[in-house]
């Protein structure tokens, strides 16, 4: 039975409260940092903080730090597959522009591309009206943006 009790890992209350507080502080930090502009670092900083928060949740709330390592293996394994999935897809989609023009042309002829008038800006809140301003744009201008 003593082995059973040791496996149960009753963590001290203060540890849970400390981890919870750390998560809340990191939430405040990530919102505050987002109000400043660090250029391309913005995404990295936001994701870095999210990874720290996720690690805290997984290690302490989900007990990965204390449990059998096989659960860690399963979880980290899922993240590795996710990384392969996203990174290898990005190799394709980020380098696709060169051949896109040729291949996409027949589809873009059929596509309806929604574009806003050049004068409207994101900061204004025009009343939503259902009149469609869907413009079929020229194939060349669309493909160059992809």
């Amino acid at each position, binding site marked *: 039975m003593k082995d059973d009790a040791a496996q149960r890992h009753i963590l001290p209350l203060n540890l849970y409260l400390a981890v919870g507080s750390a*998560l809340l502080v990191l939430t405040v930090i990530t919102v505050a940092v987002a109000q400043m502009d660090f250029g391309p670092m913005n995404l990295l900083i936001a994701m870095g903080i999210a990874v720290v928060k996720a690690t805290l949740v997984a290690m302490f709330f989900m007990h990965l730090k204390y449990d059998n390592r096989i659960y860690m293996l399963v979880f980290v394994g899922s993240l590795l597959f996710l990384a392969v999935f996203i990174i290898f*897809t990005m190799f394709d989609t980020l380098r696709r522009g060169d051949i896109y023009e040729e291949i996409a042309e027949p589809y873009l002829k059929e596509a309806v591309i929604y574009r806003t008038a050049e004068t409207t800006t994101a900061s204004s809140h025009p009343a939503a009206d259902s009149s469609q301003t869907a413009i079929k744009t020229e194939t060349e201008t669309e493909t160059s943006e992809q």
Partner: protein
Amino acid sequence: MSQTTEHPAHLQHHFSDVHQQAESAKLGMWIFLLTEVLLFGGLFCFYAIYRSWNPEMFHNAHAFLNVWMGATNTVVLIVSSLTMALAIRSMQLGKRKLTMWFLAGTVFLACVFMVIKYFEYSHKIHLGQLPGKWYFFEGIAGTNPHIFFSAYFLMTGLHGFHVLGGIAVITWLFIKTARGSFSPEYYTPIEMTGLYWHLVDLIWIFLFPLFYLIG
């Protein structure tokens, strides 16, 4: 001799002891969580592709999300994760009443999350930002802003369904706890639901900066 027949009611006869049973349940749960990561992973990949293609449109469109509602929901979900962890701890210590309070608190916070989500969704649907044929909002500069809202509604929507599922399961746990089904020797369902609930929290931890805090 009669060893095999004398075992606690919560121990299934095909496990050698309670510990082995709990570890097996936990391994199964983690494998389920692995499939959940990959389920959301497809949508995260979708997000990564379209954000890398349309960085400015994503930046312009994200201004229509309410950062304060999103941040409030983040806090609500983190606190609910904490109450869930404390519910498990209370049952480990054999405090049944306290477990029920923490489970009730978790359900309450999950409901608060869904109510805030309801206000956010209804506002966007009112503006005409629901993607597909319902999209008629015109205030966002950039190509195909409806793609941002496709990602937003799909990812937060799938996450929202997980929160609803969590509410149902934790309510069931509350009833079971009230009936005295759990003890410091057997609380596996609470622990497994806790793992699920923390994963739901964990996914929101990534959704929040990716949608509400685009720099």
